[in-house]
């Protein structure tokens, strides 16, 4: 997949949000969002608390479906060119190809191996050698293989907080998704674990497309290629990260970045 799309001069965006409105029941959470996520780039969503960045992220794998009365009221979300709200979209297939890592590291209280193999198992993979291979590959991608290869059958909850979060990343990439959504993955971690995950993100972008929600602007600068700034449910500015941080077009972006927010 990557060879073809990167070879073209302008590869089509893997995720495209078009004129999307989103509401929780009667209260509107997102207004007229337009967003393009390019293959093998890290796109950061920043903005103050409650601006809708997590909601926007969860629109991409339809995790909002779990909330009753939450729905897209206008526009569309395309992933790999397909409208994900079409009737013939199988949610399990969508979520297999759009993985997600949550704010709170939440490994299952099972072995490390079973955690990573979970996604493959539920998609029907029974072949032991395929599972073994996927576990090794995913843990290596998450920079955990060297640390954990001798205790794959230990309980995942025995790991440190940073290791747990990297295990969650390994679990999410085991199904080889095209897009990896990360919802403030470092907000519960210490600075050293945070640094490890940020380093990881550059590696991950080589294989996957990463969309990350963060409330830490330095983190967005460090890890992302593109940044979207959201405020009160509106996408204020979307630009290459360097451009957005050094030379914001919008006054609102500038005052948020400077911390002089009204």
């Amino acid at each position, binding site marked *: 997949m990557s060879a073809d799309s990167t070879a073209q001069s302008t590869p089509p965006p893997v995720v495209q949000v078009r004129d999307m409105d989103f509401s929780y029941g009667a209260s509107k959470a997102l207004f007229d969002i337009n967003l393009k996520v390019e293959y093998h780039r890290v796109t950061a969503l920043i903005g103050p608390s409650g601006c809708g960045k997590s909601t926007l992220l969860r629109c991409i794998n339809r*995790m909002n479906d*779990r909330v*009753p009365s939450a729905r897209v009221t206008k526009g569309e979300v395309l992933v790999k060119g397909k409208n994900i709200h079409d009737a013939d979209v199988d949610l399990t297939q969508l*979520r*297999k190809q759009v993985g997600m890592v949550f704010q*709170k590291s939440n490994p299952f209280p099972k072995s490390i191996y079973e955690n990573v193999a*979970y996604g493959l198992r*539920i998609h029907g993979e029974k072949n032991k050698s395929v599972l073994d291979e996927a576990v090794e590959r995913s843990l290596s991608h998450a920079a955990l293989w060297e640390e954990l290869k001798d205790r794959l059958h230990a309980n995942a909850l025995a790991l440190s907080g940073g290791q747990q979060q990297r295990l969650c990343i390994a679990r999410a990439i085991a199904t080889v998704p095209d897009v990896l959504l990360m919802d403030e993955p470092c907000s519960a971690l210490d600075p050293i674990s945070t640094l490890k995950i940020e380093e990881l993100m550059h590696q991950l972008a080589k294989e996957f497309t990463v969309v990350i929600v963060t409330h830490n602007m330095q983190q967005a600068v460090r890890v992302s290629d593109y940044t979207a700034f959201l405020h009160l449910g509106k996408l204020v500015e979307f630009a290459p990260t360097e451009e957005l941080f050094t030379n914001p077009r919008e006054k609102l972006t500038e005052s948020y970045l400077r911390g002089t927010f009204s």
Partner: protein
Amino acid sequence: MTPVPTNDNPFAGDNSGIQQRETAARWALRIGSYIVVIITLAIMLHIFIKGAPVVFRSQWPFVNTQFLTELPATLHVIEDQQGNHIETDVNGADAIKKKLGDNFRAEKTISYSGGGILGPIVGTALLVVVSVGVALFLGVACAIYLSEYAKHGKFLEMVRLAILNLAGVPSVVFGLFGLGAFVLTAPTFVDVPADRSVFSIPLGFTTLSFEGWDTCVLSGGFTLAFVILPVIITASEQCLQAVPQGFRETSMALGATRWQTIRYSVLPFATPGILTSSILGIARAAGETAPIMFTAALAFKDKLPWQKDLPPLPADASIFAHWEQSVARFFGIFTESVQALPYHIYTLAAKIPQNEYAERAQYGSVFVFLVLVASLAASSVMLRKRLRAKYRW
């Protein structure tokens, strides 16, 4: 301004009685708790003192095996001229009377107080197995649906309220419900529908007739299942809710269906609690008398459920015929009526004239019953501990 030091106590009480009220409250609460503990211990001790001598023996094998392995029987007590009492059963009575000859003075018979209580123990065990099986299946299914599938709203609240109310229904009402529903109208396959059949559906090779299951283990077990169902549903739902939402989100985000999520990342972690609640349900089911009075239990039965009377086979009967009879006897564990411990205790205590012999049988039964229930409760605590250690999050 520096305060001038004085010899007065700056923290002296103000004699408003606040300390006295504190002491009074503490003692009132303490006495209340002591009363509860003392009464509980008194009951236990009383049953132990009266019941243990019936069940235990001072010589090998230290346990009254007859009491635990024989069916209840009528006790015959024969008194001779010297005032000695000889206890025997119906078969031994004549022999002893003949041996005593002129020395014989009187004979007393006490119903149900001889022999043992194997029948009631077996009956209670069967009822508990059936009721817990049914209640776990229905209860866990219902709890999973309510907790994981049902949409929040008015309807769900109403269902929850209904389940809570079910827990408050008097058990004799469940007994009557069981009589009407399972004993008299439940569907069964028969060749010829009985006259009392509510309605029947001919299926060609057999007939599905709503004529009830009669008084039997199955009827009693289903009735008991409905008694303990609210406990199991409520407890199971709480256990499911206690599993972190993050497990569900993660599993769904990996592309699992709802059922896969429940099967692999919710149920395994809720099982310890569900099992604990089910064992407490066992204790409840074993102890109920009213629901089984009309549906399963007899005051007396001289056969175990698998010793059903069947016409003797001719000498040249085929193996198949023997096999068929064995199967019919085996299914007696569901289709026969039984004795049950709580009902047996009630019979001994209220239905026969009281004397030392009847009392002995009563306390023995109560003691055995209490030990069974206590060991169930203890095993539930141990099971929970072990599973908690395994599935911790």
